[in-house]
C-alpha cells in the first residue's frame, strides 16, 4: 500500500528522480530530502491507521492573500498544477491531511485549526476560461471523497452544515483559479 522509492545513483544515467512516497501507484510526496519524504510516509501510515476513529481528510491547508482554504485537486506536492499555483502566490501546508474537528474547524499539525474560506477541487470543465463552482450536495460528496475511511452519518451531516457558505471552485487553468480567488470568489 505504501512505498518509498529512492533511486540509487548510477553514473551516466542522468538525473535521478526525487525520493518519492507512493500510496498505491499514486505519488504523494517527493523531495530531495529523503528524511522529509520518510516523515511523510510515517504521517501517511498514521493517517490511514487513525482514520477509522478520527475524521481524517486527504486535503491540504493552503493560503492566498491571507485567506485560508483547503486544496483537494490532487495530493502530490509536486504536481505541475500545484507548483504553478505556488508560483502565483498560493502557499501550502506541509501536511497532506487535515482532521475535521467536532467544532466544525479543520486542523493539521503545521497549519493549526481554521475554518476554510474556500475549497479547491478538480475541475472537469473543458477549456481554460471557466471557473466551476461546487455547492450543496455535490460539494459535500466531493469533500467526503477525500475522507480516509468512511464517515458515519453524524459526521456527514456535520460536514454538510459546515460546508454551507464555503466557496468551492476549480478551473483547468491555475491562473484562472488564482484570479477567481483574488476576485473574492
Amino acid at each position, binding site marked *: 500500500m505504501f512505498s518509498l522509492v529512492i533511486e540509487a545513483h548510477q553514473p551516466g544515467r542522468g538525473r535521478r528522480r526525487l525520493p518519492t512516497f507512493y500510496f498505491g501507484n499514486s505519488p504523494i510526496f517527493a523531495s530531495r530530502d529523503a528524511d522529509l519524504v520518510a516523515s511523510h510516509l510515517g504521517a501517511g501510515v498514521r493517517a490511514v491507521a487513525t482514520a477509522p476513529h478520527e475524521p481524517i481528510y486527504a486535503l491540504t491547508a493552503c493560503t492566498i492573500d491571507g485567506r485560508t482554504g483547503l486544496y483537494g485537486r490532487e495530493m502530490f506536492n509536486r504536481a505541475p498544477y500545484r507548483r504553478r499555483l505556488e508560483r502565483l502566490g498560493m502557499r501550502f501546508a506541509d501536511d497532506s491531511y487535515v482532521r475535521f474537528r467536532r467544532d466544525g474547524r479543520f486542523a493539521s499539525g503545521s497549519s493549526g485549526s481554521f475554518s476554510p474560506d474556500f475549497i479547491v477541487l478538480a475541475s472537469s470543465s473543458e477549456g481554460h476560461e471557466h471557473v466551476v463552482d461546487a455547492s450543496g450536495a*455535490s460539494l459535500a460528496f466531493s469533500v467526503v471523497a477525500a475522507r480516509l475511511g*468512511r464517515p458515519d452519518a453524524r459526521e456527514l451531516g456535520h460536514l454538510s452544515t459546515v460546508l454551507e457558505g464555503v466557496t468551492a471552485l476549480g478551473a483547468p487553468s491555475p491562473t484562472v483559479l488564482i484570479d477567481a480567488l483574488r476576485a473574492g470568489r
Partner: protein
Amino acid sequence: MRANPQVHVEWIEGEAVALDSKTSQLHYLNGPAALVLALVTEYGYDQALEELGRSHADAQGMNEDLPALFTDMLERGLLLDE
C-alpha cells in the same frame, strides 16, 4: 418498494448525499433523484408515484426517466424491492 433504512440521507439545497452504512458507499443524488427518494421515504412507493404524477404531470422528461431512476436506485441499494 421502500427506502432502505440503512441509508442515511443528508438533504442539501434540494439535492442529497446518501451514505449506505452497510456497504460504506456514498451516493450523490441530484435534484430529481433526491426528490424521488424523499417522496418514497415520506409516502411510500405507491403514494410517491401519485404525488410525482400530480406535481410533475407536465414534466414529461422526468416521468419518462422514472423507471430507469428507480432501477438505478434499487441497484445502488437506496431503495429496497419489497
